[in-house]
């Protein structure tokens, strides 16, 4: 393994992020080749966490763009602060400055509201981490617009001119696969798939994030969660749910997961009435507990 990859791995681990070679390699390549990293996987496996941890590890700023249906360029890139412009014009009404000067003033950077993408491009100091979260939730038009920004890292504002990135941000995109992304966007990115962790990895995550938990309890928790994931549920618990549950059990001073404790805390990892019914109908879960 290349030394740099090992370094990234240990950097991530310092930030209490249990990782593997695949993530470290993907991040290393993304940084070396200057390509955005597209992370896909089921909900709650720590996709967003990658960007957060990366920012911490590099000791740089995390700029996050949360996507949603209807997200457009003004909310993502920049916008003129028109109330402020209006106020300025009003206050400046009686001053002798010329029309042209006035216009230059109100269309200067002071009146520009920087949205995440522009922020990421104009960030001084070191390259920030730009997290474009849940890109699959945005519209196809926005995706096309994003392509343009991600390929050149420059933005043209008609009133000011073209702004080019001083430091190319490290870009991480996440997707839950609720919509198929365009091939153009996929091609521009490196691809990484995160799946639910294995039992061993999940155990390690629980120990890293909930240090107060005992060995037996953590094993029980992860085993039940791993079993739950094989059931036919509408909302499969992610790692976030495992951690919530483990934290709750520690807070309740539980020493083991018996029927009573399970009933009290089941809401930590199953968030759907029908799912809870499925879980309870499954004989092996409770049977294991009674031993």
């Amino acid at each position, binding site marked *: *393994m*290349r030394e740099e*990859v090992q370094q990234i791995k240990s950097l991530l681990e310092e930030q209490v992020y249990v990782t593997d*070679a*695949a993530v470290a*390699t*993907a991040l*290393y*390549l993304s940084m*070396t*080749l200057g*390509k955005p*990293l*597209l992370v*896909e996987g089921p909900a709650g496996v720590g996709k967003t966490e990658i960007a957060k941890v990366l920012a911490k590890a590099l000791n740089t700023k995390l700029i996050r763009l949360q996507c949603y249906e209807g997200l457009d360029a*003004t*909310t993502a890139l920049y*916008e003129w602060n*028109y*109330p402020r412009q*209006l*106020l300025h014009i*009003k206050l400046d009404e009686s001053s002798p400055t010329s029309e042209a000067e006035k216009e230059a003033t109100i269309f200067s950077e002071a009146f520009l509201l920087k949205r995440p993408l522009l922020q990421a491009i104009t960030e001084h100091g070191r390259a920030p981490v730009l997290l474009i979260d849940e890109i699959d939730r945005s519209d*196809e038009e926005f995706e096309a617009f994003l392509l343009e920004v991600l390929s050149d890292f420059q933005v043209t504002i008609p009133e000011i001119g073209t702004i080019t990135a001083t430091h190319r941000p490290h870009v991480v995109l996440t997707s839950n696969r*609720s*919509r*198929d992304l365009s*091939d153009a966007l*996929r*091609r521009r*990115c*490196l*691809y*990484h*798939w995160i799946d639910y962790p294995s039992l061993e990895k999940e155990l390690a995550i629980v120990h890293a994030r909930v240090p107060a938990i005992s060995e037996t309890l953590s094993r029980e928790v992860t085993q039940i969660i791993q079993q739950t994931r094989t059931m*036919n549920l*509408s909302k499969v618990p992610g790692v976030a749910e495992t951690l919530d549950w483990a934290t709750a059990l520690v807070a309740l001073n539980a020493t083991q997961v018996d029927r009573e404790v399970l009933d009290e805390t089941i809401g930590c990892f199953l968030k759907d009435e029908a799912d809870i019914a499925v879980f309870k109908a499954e004989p092996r879960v409770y049977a294991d507990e009674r031993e």
Partner: protein
Amino acid sequence: MNENDVVLLGRALREHGVAVTPAEVVAAVAAFAVIDQADREEVFLSLRSVFTARIDDFPIFEELFAKYWKRLPEKHVERAGFSKTTLKERPGAPQRGLAYFLEHWSSSRGEDGEPLKVPGASETESAAAKDFSAFGKEDLDEVARLARRIAKRLARDPSRRWRPVRRGSRINLRRSLRQSLSTGGEVIALSFKERKPKRTKLVVICDVSGSMDIYSRLLLQFIYGLQNSFAKVESFVFATSLSRITGYLRNKTYENALERLSAKVRGWSGGTRIGESLAAFNTDWLRRIDKRTVVIILSDGWDTGEPEQLAQAMAQLQRRAGRVIWLNPLLGSSSYAPATRGMQAALPHIDVFAPAHDLASLRALEAHLVL
């Protein structure tokens, strides 16, 4: 493995249907230069992240990578399931159904009028559908035209109406002035407006099992037409299991789409497990269904699975969807009654139950699609 092999691997992947362009190959070589070339895992992970763009590409990558890592000549890479030649050389398909048609579409062009045999279905059904099998080339074109027309109607750009929005490109003068009264006639907060969009989405789930063979060909043309004139269509086919074909139909010529589909058709034209397939659909795709979604299921309702599962899946689907339309080609026959167990189970959860056996019935569909 050296740089040359990386390029060859890229080419092999492209030949096996992974979308690898020269840009990826360049990136892969660049990546290869900055990693530990002796570490198999690292090379594997790196090249995979560059060459693949979706998890579905992983298995084929893994397979081809293994060959190139050991530097085997390319001809060893051919795999029965992926090779086009073996597909064509396969001795005559037992049924002349959709699968057969797809595999032989190029040679059978021009003899479109040739009747297709109905496998496994009983006498009455084949009689009811005979006119279908004699569908000529012009009729198929008509189906395509019809699909485009319906799609246009659905996608017809933003509606005429405006709606106020918090931010947008057009200023809502009326509102802005009205609001300015509270600040003494000084316009400070602007309000905006935009055209109300029409957001009807379509999900088409088509049964391609043996009993549907004669219709599937026509319906596939219909779906193809919809898919290519209307952005918000997702299409799926199922027989014993569900597969998504949206990407196969989009932005391709019809022939090109058929060619790509033909690599996928194994297992089509077999038995039907509607309930299981719909449940599989719900697991992966139910999240995408909302009240503005019209779900169209094209099936004759001959199910070999459990009716309870079908009923449950349909109920789930109907709760989420704006409208559930079940098109049953058999409904065109006057003697047909939806008496099969599957159909009985599904009926309570269907909003529109309509025939789909000829052009007129497809035309009538248009009215149901606008929510």
